[in-house]
Protein backbone atom coordinates (compact mmCIF):
# COMPACT_ATOMS: atom_id res chain seq x y z
CA UNK A 1 0.00 0.00 0.00
CA UNK A 2 2.80 2.35 0.89
CA UNK A 3 4.40 1.66 -2.46
CA UNK A 4 1.16 2.42 -4.22
CA UNK A 5 0.88 5.68 -2.37
CA UNK A 6 4.44 6.71 -3.05
CA UNK A 7 4.57 5.75 -6.69
CA UNK A 8 2.16 8.38 -8.03
CA UNK A 9 3.83 11.00 -5.86
CA UNK A 10 7.21 10.03 -7.25
CA UNK A 11 5.93 10.21 -10.78
CA UNK A 12 4.35 13.59 -10.16
CA UNK A 13 7.62 14.78 -8.63
CA UNK A 14 9.42 13.61 -11.75
CA UNK A 15 7.06 15.62 -13.93
CA UNK A 16 7.41 18.74 -11.79
CA UNK A 17 11.17 18.37 -11.52
CA UNK A 18 11.44 18.01 -15.25
CA UNK A 19 9.41 21.16 -15.71
CA UNK A 20 9.29 22.95 -19.00
CA UNK A 21 12.75 23.78 -20.19
CA UNK A 22 14.08 27.17 -21.04
CA UNK A 23 12.25 28.94 -23.78
CA UNK A 24 14.35 31.86 -24.87
CA UNK A 25 14.07 33.03 -28.42
CA UNK A 26 17.78 32.55 -28.89
CA UNK A 27 20.68 30.95 -27.08
CA UNK A 28 21.75 32.86 -23.96
CA UNK A 29 25.18 31.25 -24.10
CA UNK A 30 25.85 32.40 -27.64
CA UNK A 31 25.30 36.03 -26.80
CA UNK A 32 25.96 36.48 -23.07
CA UNK A 33 28.52 35.18 -20.61
CA UNK A 34 26.96 33.53 -17.54
CA UNK A 35 30.35 33.91 -15.87
CA UNK A 36 30.34 37.70 -16.12
CA UNK A 37 27.61 39.16 -13.89
CA UNK A 38 27.32 42.92 -13.86
CA UNK A 39 25.45 45.47 -11.71
CA UNK A 40 24.64 48.76 -13.42
CA UNK A 41 23.39 51.96 -11.74
CA UNK A 42 21.95 54.34 -14.28
CA UNK A 43 19.11 56.44 -15.62
CA UNK A 44 16.54 55.15 -18.07
CA UNK A 45 16.67 56.80 -21.48
CA UNK A 46 14.29 54.50 -23.37
CA UNK A 47 12.36 51.23 -23.11
CA UNK A 48 11.77 49.39 -26.38
CA UNK A 49 8.61 47.27 -26.10
CA UNK A 50 9.54 44.94 -28.92
CA UNK A 51 9.33 41.24 -29.64
CA UNK A 52 11.07 38.89 -29.36
CA UNK A 53 12.81 40.85 -26.59
CA UNK A 54 12.25 44.19 -24.91
CA UNK A 55 15.36 46.38 -24.61
CA UNK A 56 15.98 48.86 -21.82
CA UNK A 57 18.44 51.67 -22.54
CA UNK A 58 20.19 53.28 -19.59
CA UNK A 59 22.93 55.86 -19.14
CA UNK A 60 25.54 54.84 -16.58
CA UNK A 61 27.99 57.33 -15.06
CA UNK A 62 31.41 55.80 -14.53
CA UNK A 63 33.89 56.59 -11.73
CA UNK A 64 35.53 59.13 -14.03
CA UNK A 65 32.23 60.97 -14.50
CA UNK A 66 31.92 59.83 -18.08
CA UNK A 67 28.43 58.67 -19.10
CA UNK A 68 28.21 55.39 -20.99
CA UNK A 69 25.03 54.05 -22.62
CA UNK A 70 24.07 50.43 -21.94
CA UNK A 71 21.40 48.20 -23.47
CA UNK A 72 19.67 45.61 -21.31
CA UNK A 73 17.88 42.69 -22.94
CA UNK A 74 14.58 41.80 -21.31
CA UNK A 75 11.82 39.28 -21.76
CA UNK A 76 9.11 39.42 -24.40
CA UNK A 77 6.59 42.24 -23.88
CA UNK A 78 3.74 39.87 -23.10
CA UNK A 79 5.92 38.05 -20.55
CA UNK A 80 6.73 41.34 -18.80
CA UNK A 81 3.12 42.53 -18.92
CA UNK A 82 1.94 39.31 -17.28
CA UNK A 83 4.62 39.80 -14.63
CA UNK A 84 3.29 43.21 -13.61
CA UNK A 85 5.19 45.56 -15.84
CA UNK A 86 3.42 48.35 -17.73
CA UNK A 87 4.38 51.20 -20.01
CA UNK A 88 5.10 53.50 -17.06
CA UNK A 89 7.26 51.06 -15.07
CA UNK A 90 10.53 52.52 -16.30
CA UNK A 91 9.77 56.00 -17.61
CA UNK A 92 12.72 57.94 -19.06
CA UNK A 93 14.66 59.61 -16.26
CA UNK A 94 14.00 56.83 -13.73
CA UNK A 95 17.04 55.88 -11.68
CA UNK A 96 17.47 52.11 -11.72
CA UNK A 97 19.87 49.42 -10.60
CA UNK A 98 20.02 46.47 -12.97
CA UNK A 99 21.72 43.15 -12.43
CA UNK A 100 22.58 41.07 -15.45
CA UNK A 101 25.21 39.22 -17.46
CA UNK A 102 27.57 40.91 -19.93
CA UNK A 103 27.64 40.35 -23.68
CA UNK A 104 30.34 37.98 -24.88
CA UNK A 105 31.65 40.49 -27.41
CA UNK A 106 32.49 42.96 -24.65
CA UNK A 107 30.14 45.68 -25.85
CA UNK A 108 27.89 47.58 -23.43
CA UNK A 109 25.05 45.11 -23.55
CA UNK A 110 23.73 42.77 -20.88
CA UNK A 111 21.03 40.20 -20.33
CA UNK A 112 18.83 41.69 -17.62
CA UNK A 113 17.82 40.18 -14.31
CA UNK A 114 16.58 42.03 -11.22
CA UNK A 115 15.81 45.72 -11.71
CA UNK A 116 15.47 47.94 -8.61
CA UNK A 117 13.43 51.15 -8.74
CA UNK A 118 14.13 54.30 -6.62
CA UNK A 119 11.56 53.24 -3.99
CA UNK A 120 13.29 49.90 -3.55
CA UNK A 121 10.65 47.99 -5.46
CA UNK A 122 12.10 45.20 -7.56
CA UNK A 123 10.91 44.15 -10.98
CA UNK A 124 12.27 41.27 -12.91
CA UNK A 125 13.12 42.19 -16.46
CA UNK A 126 14.55 38.91 -17.65
CA UNK A 127 14.17 35.40 -16.40
CA UNK A 128 11.78 33.82 -13.92
CA UNK A 129 12.44 31.87 -10.77
CA UNK A 130 14.22 34.47 -8.68
CA UNK A 131 11.48 35.43 -6.26
CA UNK A 132 10.83 38.82 -7.80
CA UNK A 133 7.33 40.22 -7.19
CA UNK A 134 4.79 38.57 -9.39
CA UNK A 135 7.29 35.95 -10.33
CA UNK A 136 6.73 32.28 -9.88
CA UNK A 137 9.47 29.77 -9.24
CA UNK A 138 10.29 27.88 -12.35
CA UNK A 139 9.86 24.15 -11.72
CA UNK A 140 13.29 22.64 -11.92
CA UNK A 141 14.76 25.89 -13.16
CA UNK A 142 18.44 26.62 -12.64
CA UNK A 143 19.18 29.19 -10.00
Amino acid at each position, binding site marked *: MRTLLLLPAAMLAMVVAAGVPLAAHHSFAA*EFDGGKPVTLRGTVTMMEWTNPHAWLHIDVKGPDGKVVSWMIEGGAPNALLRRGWNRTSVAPGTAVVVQGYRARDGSNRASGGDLTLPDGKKLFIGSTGTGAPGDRPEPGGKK
Partner: protein
Amino acid sequence: MLLALAAGIAASALAVLVAQQPSAPATAAGAAANWTPTRTPDGQPDIQGTWTNYTSTPFEVPDKSDTPDVYAGDLDGTGRGTGPSSFLTDTSGRQLTKARSLVVDPPSGRVPIMPWAEERRNYKLAHIQDDWVNFTPWERCITRGVPGGIFPAGYGSGYQILQGPGYVAIVYEMIHEARIIPVDGRPHLGASFRLWNGDSRGRWDGNTLVVDITRYNDKGSVATNVATQRVRSIPQSEALHVVERFTRVDENTINYDVAIEDPKVFTAPWKVAMPLHREPDYQLFEYACHEGNRAVPNTLSGGRARDRAARAAGSR
Protein backbone atom coordinates in the same frame (compact mmCIF):
# COMPACT_ATOMS: atom_id res chain seq x y z
CA MET B 1 -12.85 -1.76 6.79
CA LEU B 2 -9.09 -1.63 6.62
CA LEU B 3 -9.25 -3.73 3.48
CA ALA B 4 -11.80 -1.37 1.96
CA LEU B 5 -9.61 1.59 2.82
CA ALA B 6 -6.59 -0.08 1.28
CA ALA B 7 -8.58 -0.91 -1.82
CA GLY B 8 -9.80 2.65 -2.05
CA ILE B 9 -6.30 4.06 -1.74
CA ALA B 10 -5.01 1.57 -4.27
CA ALA B 11 -7.78 2.54 -6.67
CA SER B 12 -7.07 6.22 -6.29
CA ALA B 13 -3.35 5.62 -6.66
CA LEU B 14 -4.05 3.63 -9.81
CA ALA B 15 -6.24 6.46 -11.08
CA VAL B 16 -3.35 8.87 -10.62
CA LEU B 17 -1.03 6.45 -12.35
CA VAL B 18 -3.41 6.07 -15.26
CA ALA B 19 -3.82 9.81 -15.45
CA GLN B 20 -0.04 10.20 -15.71
CA GLN B 21 0.20 8.00 -18.77
CA PRO B 22 0.72 9.74 -22.10
CA SER B 23 -2.52 8.53 -23.55
CA ALA B 24 -5.20 11.16 -23.70
CA PRO B 25 -5.56 14.91 -24.17
CA ALA B 26 -6.16 16.86 -20.99
CA THR B 27 -9.89 17.25 -21.23
CA ALA B 28 -12.04 14.18 -20.86
CA ALA B 29 -13.49 13.01 -24.13
CA GLY B 30 -16.82 12.80 -22.34
CA ALA B 31 -17.05 16.56 -22.31
CA ALA B 32 -17.31 16.56 -26.09
CA ALA B 33 -20.34 14.32 -26.00
CA ASN B 34 -22.21 16.68 -23.69
CA TRP B 35 -21.29 19.97 -25.27
CA THR B 36 -22.35 21.21 -28.67
CA PRO B 37 -20.50 24.14 -30.21
CA THR B 38 -22.44 26.95 -31.79
CA ARG B 39 -22.24 27.32 -35.57
CA THR B 40 -20.85 30.06 -37.74
CA PRO B 41 -23.28 31.58 -40.31
CA ASP B 42 -21.96 29.19 -42.98
CA GLY B 43 -22.52 26.20 -40.70
CA GLN B 44 -19.03 25.46 -39.37
CA PRO B 45 -18.62 24.51 -35.69
CA ASP B 46 -17.49 27.77 -34.09
CA ILE B 47 -13.91 27.58 -32.76
CA GLN B 48 -13.26 31.31 -32.97
CA GLY B 49 -11.62 33.29 -30.22
CA THR B 50 -8.28 33.96 -28.56
CA TRP B 51 -6.56 30.87 -27.21
CA THR B 52 -3.32 30.26 -25.30
CA ASN B 53 -1.19 27.18 -24.70
CA TYR B 54 0.69 27.82 -21.43
CA THR B 55 1.65 24.48 -19.93
CA SER B 56 3.97 22.95 -17.37
CA THR B 57 3.86 19.54 -19.00
CA PRO B 58 7.18 18.63 -20.64
CA PHE B 59 7.18 18.06 -24.39
CA GLU B 60 8.75 14.61 -24.10
CA VAL B 61 9.01 12.22 -21.17
CA PRO B 62 12.40 13.05 -19.62
CA ASP B 63 15.22 10.54 -20.01
CA LYS B 64 18.63 10.35 -18.36
CA SER B 65 20.26 10.46 -21.79
CA ASP B 66 18.89 13.97 -22.35
CA THR B 67 21.31 16.87 -22.69
CA PRO B 68 19.11 19.91 -22.18
CA ASP B 69 22.06 22.30 -22.20
CA VAL B 70 22.96 21.14 -25.70
CA TYR B 71 19.37 21.58 -26.88
CA ALA B 72 19.43 25.10 -25.43
CA GLY B 73 22.63 25.89 -27.28
CA ASP B 74 24.96 25.85 -24.29
CA LEU B 75 28.35 26.32 -25.87
CA ASP B 76 30.76 25.69 -23.03
CA GLY B 77 28.92 22.78 -21.48
CA THR B 78 28.85 24.36 -18.05
CA GLY B 79 25.10 24.38 -17.77
CA ARG B 80 25.23 28.01 -16.73
CA GLY B 81 25.24 29.10 -20.33
CA THR B 82 21.55 28.47 -20.69
CA GLY B 83 20.97 31.64 -18.78
CA PRO B 84 19.91 32.56 -15.31
CA SER B 85 17.01 30.35 -14.37
CA SER B 86 14.47 30.08 -17.14
CA PHE B 87 15.85 32.83 -19.30
CA LEU B 88 13.14 35.22 -20.38
CA THR B 89 10.15 32.94 -20.09
CA ASP B 90 6.64 33.65 -18.94
CA THR B 91 5.47 31.09 -16.41
CA SER B 92 2.25 32.81 -15.40
CA GLY B 93 -0.94 30.91 -15.99
CA ARG B 94 0.77 27.64 -16.74
CA GLN B 95 -1.29 24.53 -16.44
CA LEU B 96 -0.30 20.93 -15.99
CA THR B 97 -2.08 18.51 -18.27
CA LYS B 98 -2.89 15.05 -17.00
CA ALA B 99 -0.42 13.46 -19.38
CA ARG B 100 3.23 13.07 -18.41
CA SER B 101 4.31 14.55 -21.75
CA LEU B 102 2.76 16.35 -24.68
CA VAL B 103 4.09 13.55 -26.91
CA VAL B 104 1.41 10.88 -26.47
CA ASP B 105 2.48 8.40 -29.15
CA PRO B 106 4.61 6.33 -29.08
CA PRO B 107 3.61 5.36 -25.52
CA SER B 108 7.18 5.99 -24.33
CA GLY B 109 6.55 9.71 -24.84
CA ARG B 110 9.79 9.90 -26.84
CA VAL B 111 9.98 11.06 -30.46
CA PRO B 112 11.60 8.39 -32.70
CA ILE B 113 14.27 10.58 -34.30
CA MET B 114 16.80 9.10 -36.74
CA PRO B 115 20.44 9.44 -35.58
CA TRP B 116 21.51 11.52 -38.61
CA ALA B 117 18.89 14.14 -37.75
CA GLU B 118 20.09 14.33 -34.14
CA GLU B 119 23.69 14.72 -35.32
CA ARG B 120 22.70 17.55 -37.64
CA ARG B 121 20.78 19.24 -34.81
CA ASN B 122 23.76 18.95 -32.46
CA TYR B 123 26.11 20.43 -35.04
CA LYS B 124 23.87 23.38 -35.82
CA LEU B 125 23.14 24.22 -32.18
CA ALA B 126 26.82 23.95 -31.21
CA HIS B 127 27.91 26.14 -34.13
CA ILE B 128 25.25 28.80 -33.89
CA GLN B 129 27.88 31.52 -33.40
CA ASP B 130 29.65 30.51 -36.62
CA ASP B 131 27.07 31.22 -39.30
CA TRP B 132 23.53 32.48 -39.66
CA VAL B 133 22.58 29.26 -41.47
CA ASN B 134 22.84 27.41 -38.15
CA PHE B 135 20.05 29.41 -36.54
CA THR B 136 16.58 27.88 -36.46
CA PRO B 137 13.96 29.54 -38.67
CA TRP B 138 12.35 30.78 -35.43
CA GLU B 139 15.46 32.66 -34.28
CA ARG B 140 15.63 34.24 -37.71
CA CYS B 141 11.95 35.22 -37.40
CA ILE B 142 10.99 33.29 -40.55
CA THR B 143 8.60 30.78 -38.99
CA ARG B 144 8.16 28.42 -36.05
CA GLY B 145 6.79 25.94 -38.57
CA VAL B 146 3.69 23.80 -38.81
CA PRO B 147 2.99 22.16 -36.45
CA GLY B 148 5.93 23.62 -34.46
CA GLY B 149 4.28 27.03 -34.26
CA ILE B 150 1.57 25.72 -31.99
CA PHE B 151 3.85 23.86 -29.60
CA PRO B 152 4.17 25.76 -26.30
CA ALA B 153 7.16 28.11 -26.22
CA GLY B 154 6.66 29.71 -22.81
CA TYR B 155 5.82 33.16 -24.10
CA GLY B 156 4.13 34.75 -27.11
CA SER B 157 1.54 32.05 -26.56
CA GLY B 158 -1.57 33.61 -28.13
CA TYR B 159 -3.53 32.22 -31.07
CA GLN B 160 -6.51 33.98 -32.63
CA ILE B 161 -8.84 31.79 -34.66
CA LEU B 162 -11.20 33.40 -37.16
CA GLN B 163 -13.67 31.72 -39.50
CA GLY B 164 -15.26 32.90 -42.73
CA PRO B 165 -17.22 31.07 -45.43
CA GLY B 166 -15.00 28.24 -46.61
CA TYR B 167 -12.00 29.22 -44.47
CA VAL B 168 -10.44 28.94 -41.03
CA ALA B 169 -7.65 31.40 -40.25
CA ILE B 170 -5.23 31.13 -37.33
CA VAL B 171 -3.15 34.14 -36.35
CA TYR B 172 -0.07 33.11 -34.36
CA GLU B 173 1.28 35.72 -31.94
CA MET B 174 4.82 34.37 -32.23
CA ILE B 175 6.38 35.45 -35.54
CA HIS B 176 3.07 37.13 -36.56
CA GLU B 177 2.13 34.16 -38.74
CA ALA B 178 -1.32 33.82 -40.26
CA ARG B 179 -2.43 30.44 -41.58
CA ILE B 180 -5.27 30.49 -44.08
CA ILE B 181 -6.86 27.03 -44.14
CA PRO B 182 -9.44 26.34 -46.87
CA VAL B 183 -12.24 24.02 -45.72
CA ASP B 184 -14.12 23.98 -49.02
CA GLY B 185 -12.88 20.64 -50.33
CA ARG B 186 -10.28 21.90 -52.76
CA PRO B 187 -7.31 19.61 -53.45
CA HIS B 188 -3.71 20.21 -52.35
CA LEU B 189 -1.40 22.31 -54.47
CA GLY B 190 0.61 20.45 -57.11
CA ALA B 191 3.68 18.55 -55.97
CA SER B 192 6.01 21.13 -57.49
CA PHE B 193 4.98 23.62 -54.79
CA ARG B 194 7.25 23.39 -51.75
CA LEU B 195 6.59 25.65 -48.75
CA TRP B 196 8.20 26.31 -45.36
CA ASN B 197 4.88 25.57 -43.64
CA GLY B 198 3.46 23.16 -46.20
CA ASP B 199 0.04 23.39 -47.80
CA SER B 200 -2.91 23.13 -45.38
CA ARG B 201 -6.29 21.72 -46.40
CA GLY B 202 -9.06 21.41 -43.83
CA ARG B 203 -12.33 19.54 -43.52
CA TRP B 204 -14.87 19.12 -40.77
CA ASP B 205 -15.27 15.64 -39.28
CA GLY B 206 -18.31 16.25 -37.08
CA ASN B 207 -17.17 18.94 -34.65
CA THR B 208 -13.48 18.32 -35.34
CA LEU B 209 -11.47 20.42 -37.77
CA VAL B 210 -9.07 18.05 -39.53
CA VAL B 211 -6.18 19.74 -41.34
CA ASP B 212 -3.98 17.79 -43.74
CA ILE B 213 -0.60 19.39 -44.44
CA THR B 214 1.85 18.36 -47.15
CA ARG B 215 4.09 19.97 -49.83
CA TYR B 216 6.77 21.01 -47.32
CA ASN B 217 10.22 22.23 -48.33
CA ASP B 218 13.31 20.75 -46.67
CA LYS B 219 14.54 24.02 -45.19
CA GLY B 220 12.53 24.22 -42.00
CA SER B 221 12.37 22.36 -38.72
CA VAL B 222 9.51 20.35 -37.27
CA ALA B 223 10.04 22.28 -34.02
CA THR B 224 12.23 25.27 -33.26
CA ASN B 225 11.87 26.50 -29.70
CA VAL B 226 13.81 25.31 -26.68
CA ALA B 227 10.70 24.04 -24.89
CA THR B 228 10.56 21.22 -27.45
CA GLN B 229 13.98 20.14 -26.15
CA ARG B 230 15.35 17.18 -28.17
CA VAL B 231 13.09 17.91 -31.13
CA ARG B 232 14.30 21.50 -31.47
CA SER B 233 16.11 22.09 -34.78
CA ILE B 234 15.33 18.59 -36.05
CA PRO B 235 15.01 19.11 -39.82
CA GLN B 236 11.92 18.53 -41.91
CA SER B 237 12.11 16.79 -45.30
CA GLU B 238 9.87 17.13 -48.33
CA ALA B 239 8.27 13.86 -47.21
CA LEU B 240 6.83 15.45 -44.04
CA HIS B 241 3.11 14.83 -43.68
CA VAL B 242 1.10 16.30 -40.80
CA VAL B 243 -2.54 15.84 -39.76
CA GLU B 244 -3.90 18.23 -37.11
CA ARG B 245 -7.20 17.84 -35.29
CA PHE B 246 -8.90 20.75 -33.49
CA THR B 247 -11.91 19.75 -31.34
CA ARG B 248 -13.69 22.30 -29.18
CA VAL B 249 -14.81 20.18 -26.24
CA ASP B 250 -16.30 22.95 -24.13
CA GLU B 251 -16.64 26.73 -24.06
CA ASN B 252 -13.07 27.24 -22.93
CA THR B 253 -11.11 24.31 -24.35
CA ILE B 254 -9.95 23.09 -27.74
CA ASN B 255 -8.30 19.69 -27.72
CA TYR B 256 -5.48 19.91 -30.25
CA ASP B 257 -3.74 16.79 -31.44
CA VAL B 258 -1.37 16.28 -34.31
CA ALA B 259 0.07 13.25 -36.08
CA ILE B 260 3.52 13.67 -37.67
CA GLU B 261 5.23 11.37 -40.13
CA ASP B 262 8.43 11.95 -42.04
CA PRO B 263 10.05 8.66 -43.11
CA LYS B 264 13.32 10.43 -43.89
CA VAL B 265 13.63 11.89 -40.38
CA PHE B 266 11.65 9.70 -37.97
CA THR B 267 11.64 5.90 -37.70
CA ALA B 268 7.89 5.92 -36.97
CA PRO B 269 4.99 8.36 -36.89
CA TRP B 270 4.41 10.21 -33.60
CA LYS B 271 1.67 12.28 -32.01
CA VAL B 272 1.32 15.29 -29.73
CA ALA B 273 -1.87 16.13 -27.79
CA MET B 274 -2.53 19.22 -25.71
CA PRO B 275 -5.31 21.65 -24.83
CA LEU B 276 -5.69 25.23 -26.02
CA HIS B 277 -7.34 27.43 -23.38
CA ARG B 278 -9.74 30.25 -24.25
CA GLU B 279 -8.41 33.54 -22.88
CA PRO B 280 -10.62 36.30 -24.30
CA ASP B 281 -8.78 39.11 -22.47
CA TYR B 282 -5.39 38.08 -23.83
CA GLN B 283 -4.01 40.49 -26.41
CA LEU B 284 -1.62 39.33 -29.08
CA PHE B 285 1.44 41.61 -28.99
CA GLU B 286 2.92 42.85 -32.24
CA TYR B 287 5.80 40.63 -33.36
CA ALA B 288 7.79 42.84 -35.68
CA CYS B 289 10.94 40.81 -36.13
CA HIS B 290 13.54 40.43 -38.84
CA GLU B 291 16.54 38.08 -38.55
CA GLY B 292 16.09 38.02 -34.79
CA ASN B 293 16.17 41.82 -34.67
CA ARG B 294 19.32 42.14 -32.53
CA ALA B 295 19.80 38.47 -31.65
CA VAL B 296 21.45 37.28 -34.88
CA PRO B 297 24.10 40.05 -35.18
CA ASN B 298 24.78 39.99 -31.42
CA THR B 299 25.24 36.21 -31.43
CA LEU B 300 27.57 36.31 -34.44
CA SER B 301 29.60 39.14 -32.86
CA GLY B 302 29.87 36.96 -29.75
CA GLY B 303 31.36 34.27 -31.97
CA ARG B 304 33.88 36.64 -33.53
CA ALA B 305 34.93 37.76 -30.04
CA ARG B 306 35.45 34.09 -29.21
CA ASP B 307 37.57 33.67 -32.37
CA ARG B 308 39.72 36.69 -31.50
CA ALA B 309 40.27 35.37 -28.00
CA ALA B 310 41.25 31.96 -29.40
CA ARG B 311 43.73 33.54 -31.84
CA ALA B 312 45.22 35.68 -29.09
CA ALA B 313 45.62 32.64 -26.87
CA GLY B 314 47.25 30.72 -29.74
CA SER B 315 49.81 33.43 -30.46
CA ARG B 316 51.00 33.69 -26.89
